[in-house]
């Protein structure tokens, strides 16, 4: 979906950094919200990102980073039917009234979780890539209603394949299909016009986003 998360090239936001912006966490509860989303995640990474994209365009830009993660953690579990918002409301009231939260431990499951988080699963080599290094490609025009990892600012632009990264699940169909991902190199002035800085932009794009140029 073409929402306010797709920020590449937008103007009017001001300086890229500011005093305090080096901090990883902005609030005491950020680490907890992060961990809750990581541990409870009932769906894929693609679904995780798409849930955050659906928070609403104004709220996406206004909310802090982990406010979005916290919202995602609750929303994903509500959408999968595991919990209801009313159940969270009820616990908020109980905690506010001074009730102690429940505590549970499962060292074996926790050890497995941490081991999985510390293990890399590299993308396998592409089995049947349609494009090769050096090919000129154009990013397709599109306006998908669901999740995509093809940013707006690249659509319609022509670039060059510089690497075949491997095969990976397609975000647009939540991993139901796999296909080649390519590193594509674009001249900045092909994206932003002749007045732009003369740099290079590289992006990793799934095969279905590309056509021969």
């Amino acid at each position, binding site marked *: 979906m073409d929402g306010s998360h797709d920020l*590449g*090239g937008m*103007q009017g*936001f001001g300086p*890229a*950094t500011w005093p305090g*912006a080096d*901090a*990883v*966490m*902005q*609030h*005491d*509860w950020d*680490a*907890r*919200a*992060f*961990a*809750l989303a990581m*541990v409870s995640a009932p769906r894929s*990474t693609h679904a995780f*990102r798409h849930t955050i994209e659906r928070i609403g365009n104004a709220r996406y830009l206004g909310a802090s*980073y982990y406010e979005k993660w916290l919202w995602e953690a609750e929303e994903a*579990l509500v959408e999968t039917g595991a*919990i209801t918002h009313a159940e*969270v*409301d009820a*616990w908020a009231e109980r905690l*506010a009234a*001074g009730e*102690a*939260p*429940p505590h*549970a*431990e499962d060292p074996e*499951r*926790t050890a497995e*979780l*941490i081991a999985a*988080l*510390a293990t*890399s699963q*590299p*993308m396998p080599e592409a089995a049947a890539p349609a494009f090769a290094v050096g090919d000129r490609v154009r990013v397709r025009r599109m306006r998908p209603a669901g999740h995509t*990892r093809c*940013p707006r*600012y690249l659509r319609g632009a022509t670039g060059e394949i510089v690497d075949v*990264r491997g095969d*990976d699940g397609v975000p647009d169909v939540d991993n139901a299909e796999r296909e080649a*991902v390519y*590193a594509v190199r674009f001249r900045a002035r092909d*994206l932003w016009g002749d007045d*732009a*800085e003369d*740099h*290079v*932009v590289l992006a*990793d*794009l799934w095969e279905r986003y590309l056509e021969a140029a």
Partner: protein
Amino acid sequence: MHDHDHHHDHDHDHDHDGHHRNPRPASAEELRARALEALLVEKGIVTSDAIDAVIDRYVNDVGPQNGAKVVARAWTDPAYRERLLADGTAAIGELGFAGDEGDTMVVVENTPQVHNVIVCTLCSCYPWPVLGLPPTWYKSAPYRARAVAEPRAVLADFGVELPDDVEVRVWDSTAEVRYLVLPMRPAGTDGRSEEELAALVTRDSMIGTGLPLAPAAA
């Protein structure tokens, strides 16, 4: 409120975790986070120790000190540098760094002709195993919007100015590849140990918005 006496089977304290220090919620978000956690523990969807362990890993254990070791090794060991540029995932794994948001690592090398910058315009993809969790600016709209369109102006906000003839390459992390910049080794560091060199490698120098520190005058 929270049970302070439960057993922690790890060594780190929890100073980072306001939950333990502030029994009264500081905000609506904090109360929501604590309510959601209580509900999920009650329902058996998560356990308290799993939450603590994930915080422990990403707040205490994993951070830019990992990436700095990778860079310092590459600066001192030419064969390692070759392996790092050829297969980032495997070479980073040699030093024991691996995992989520670093499954497929590509290391991009700065040279006198090329300066690399990493961004994620669509969310905030970042190489967790080598840099930890991203700083606020990396996740915020200004950096994500501007880095692909005007990187030299963005670098100026960070106090970095590059010669005109340097090609700036901006890597937008749109898929599951995660990037690490291999910055140039600072001049005047001949004979420095790997550990001394790692201390010069800043987080921002591995994102591309900064340069390594200059060695302190002898």
